[in-house]
């Protein structure tokens, strides 16, 4: 996968590029808005990571211009501006996701992966099956090895989110945004308790654990065997 990173802070760019390359991505770096826009329009990238505050053109203008020219490359915006209004502005300009600095690298990785997978997934409408776990999306019911499992509505939403991203790391922030529509960081890790209860419901008493914690990043639903 080919990524374009538009970041004027050289040190940040170096760090991010290194981390992304180590995760298997090919990364090009642009150091200002003008170069970023040029590379974005000339090259073909699978995803663009753009800082919002850049010399020459800011990240939002770049995205807006790309969208006007019919380019639908997913764009993840990074910014020190983190208010709700700033986020809404970023998404309205055409951005696909928005991360406030400072963020954990694991968060960035998880979201890049989510954006990349998003395009490739077929429209899942009725059922999701992972190993012997089955989700009935229409009936809002869960079963494993044929046995029905009792979960609350919110737990089902959590599970659905994880199941639709099977094999991808999902961060706590992503879960809070998707299931509770919260775009800020609560102090306590309240979501951990929900995930533990979900794990107890779907993994306890079964042979293969499916819901795993990824240290320092989040959670992943995957058949490890």
């Amino acid at each position: 996968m080919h990524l374009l990173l538009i970041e004027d802070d050289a040190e940040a760019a170096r760090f991010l590029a290194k981390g992304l390359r180590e995760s298997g991505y090919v990364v090009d770096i642009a150091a200002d808005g003008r170069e970023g826009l040029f590379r974005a329009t000339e090259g073909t990238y699978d995803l663009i990571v753009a800082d919002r505050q850049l010399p020459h053109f800011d990240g939002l203008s770049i995205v807006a211009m790309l969208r006007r020219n019919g380019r639908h490359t997913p764009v993840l915006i990074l910014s020190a501006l983190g208010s709700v209004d700033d986020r809404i502005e970023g998404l309205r300009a055409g951005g696909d996701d928005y991360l406030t600095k400072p963020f954990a690298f694991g968060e960035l990785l998880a979201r890049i992966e989510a954006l990349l997978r998003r395009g490739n997934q077929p429209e899942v409408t009725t059922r999701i099956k992972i190993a012997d776990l089955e989700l009935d999306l229409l009936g809002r019911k869960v079963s494993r090895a044929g046995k029905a499992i009792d979960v609350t509505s919110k737990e089902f939403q959590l599970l659905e989110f994880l199941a639709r991203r099977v094999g991808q790391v999902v961060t706590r922030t992503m879960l809070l945004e998707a299931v509770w529509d919260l775009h800020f960081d609560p102090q306590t890790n309240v979501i951990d308790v929900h995930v533990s209860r979900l794990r107890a419901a779907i993994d306890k008493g079964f042979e293969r654990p499916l819901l795993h914690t990824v240290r320092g990043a989040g959670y992943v639903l995957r058949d490890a065997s």
Partner: protein
Amino acid sequence: MRLSSARLALLYTALVTLLTGVLLVSVYLLTRSALEREIAAVVRAEVEDLADDLRLGGLDRLVATLNLRSDSWGRTGAVFLLADSNFRHVAGNLTEWPRDIPATPAAMVEFEIIARERDLRVLHPVEARIERLSNGYWLLVGADTSERQNVLRRFGLATLWGVALTALCVWLLGAAYARRTARRVRGYADTCESIIQGDLTQRLHVDGSGDEFDALAAAVNGMLDRIEQQTTTLRAAFDSIAHDLRTPLYRLRMRLEEAQLRNSGDAEPSRETLEIIGPALEELDRVQRTLATLLAIARAEAQGVTTHADRVDFAALTANLVELYAPGMRAAGLDVACDAAASATLTGNRQLLAQLITNLLENALKYVPSGGQVRVRVASSPQSIELTVADNGPGIAAEDRAAALQPFVRVGDSSRTSGSGLGLSLAAAVARLHRARLTLGDNAPGLIVRVEFPTDTRS
């Protein structure tokens, strides 16, 4: 709403009506007295003429003159009577001396006569002068005043109509002016209300007439321009503060993460990671959260208005967030219940409102010891929507409550609990932004936090 302009119009109407009334009534009275005097003068002149006749030509001449004059009753309405010293008719068109009039010479008297008009007997009022002649006879000369009285009556009626019409016209004009003024003022009030609600771009309407309303509007608009400019400057300042503080934090985090990766990668975390880097990253996150909260408070206060506002079902939002915190709270040994069934909609910033609610829930989670109780309630009435978060924990002493809402103040043992001490002050700032009132009270025992939002007066 009592308008002073309506009262002013009423007062004005009353004054004008009074003055006009006084004027017209004066004219009426003057006219009446003028007419009276005229009749009196004419009658006196007539009497003198007749007295001359008597002096010059004796009784016969007087009688002859009288007979002549009496014929003209139909034309002039003049009444004559010459009576002897016993008041018996001698000459004149009056048949007998009128009864019930004082026999004082040189006096004006009033009485009624019966005149025949086209076979009808009609009463006519007469004003006359009585004279005692030199030969002892009595002379009465008068005039029919029915015409005069008609005129006066009509004039009086016209006067009344005039006063009434004046009153009506003045009232209509006054009311129209009052309404126009009131509409203008209400227009200003509406514009100000929408500015308060969020639209800082609105300005008061100036109609170009240069009157005092325009002057007021221009002054207020100038003030609003200034505020808008200051808000823009402040917002730019916050953006650059955000950038300047967050960039070093970001760099710091990157270095720590790099060190962490260097030390462990995917394998078991090293001692260094566990003891140094991990905690360092946690502290960094704590600083970052404090910064985010401070910026959120500052923006909420500086904006003064909500820039991004939606219709939010506050009850559903509360229930949603209590559901998020409930398992964590139960795991901490707290009994939590939420009563937010009926929908309660208000206009506001959903994320900021969510932050308000979560701050209150997090405080409960932090301060209420295991075994305690937390009750969350959203109640809606036509005027307001009220959120209450009540617990039976240690509460906040009355003397500490005002300070607790200030930034960075933490009540109780601050070393025991994590957090920045900003939770309540952000909640208070968000409440202010939504024109709500946040109060802390004694739940006897424990703390009860009440946030009262006014519902929109116009949707």
